């Protein structure tokens, strides 16, 4: 039973355009959501997060939106850059901050074309 779903295995966008990565979850106990970015041959690196009490969190080019009633979150990257090409993982936690047990989605491979 997959509790965190990323239904798009891959996404391709042009440099300068917006990238939108989506994530759905089923467990209503999840209270905190994170996005990690992973380059080949490296470990995932934390990108941005959002608490369930918020509906938006922004950090530079990256914005995460949370729709709690739909159990859906999305990551927006504007403008997209070739260096953003990576696999993006959505993760969820029942605890604030993401320091405890995480449940990950399967990932979306983003390719930003010059």
């Amino acid at each position, binding site marked *: 039973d997959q509790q965190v779903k*990323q239904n798009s*295995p891959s996404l391709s966008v042009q440099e300068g355009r917006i990238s939108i990565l989506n994530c759905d979850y089923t467990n209503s106990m999840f209270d905190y959501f*994170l996005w*990690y970015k992973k380059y080949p*041959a*490296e*470990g*995932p*690196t*934390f990108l941005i*997060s959002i608490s369930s009490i918020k509906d938006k969190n922004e950090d530079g080019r990256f914005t995460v939106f949370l729709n709690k009633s739909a159990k859906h979150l999305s990551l927006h990257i504007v403008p997209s850059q070739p260096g953003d090409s990576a696999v993006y*993982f959505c*993760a969820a936690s029942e605890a*604030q*901050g*993401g*320091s*405890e*047990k*995480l*449940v*990950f*989605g*399967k*990932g979306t491979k983003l390719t930003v074309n010059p």
Partner: protein
Amino acid sequence: DVKVTQSSRYLVKRTGEKVFLECVQDMDHENMFWYRQDPGLGLRLIYFSYDVKMKEKGDIPEGYSVSREKKERFSLILESASTNQTSMYLCASSTSGQPQHFGDGTRLSIL
């Protein structure tokens, strides 16, 4: 800056061997985790630990065990390696209220 170091980047072992994967973090984090990453399956939690000598099973603990004798070190043990344990293994650490930091992974091949 947080540093999570996994002892090997690449490892090749034979079926039936006992395999040790080591992870060390330098930030005095109380929480440590072991995940495996497989194509199309994302990251799956094997075991985690919230304190020295403490361990809890994750979602896929079968065939694995762990050891946490010191706060900075968390070892993953494959008791009798099998080919279906060929994978990328990722260690992470965290402190309360902060996101997990990952090492660069160990790509383990079981022949």
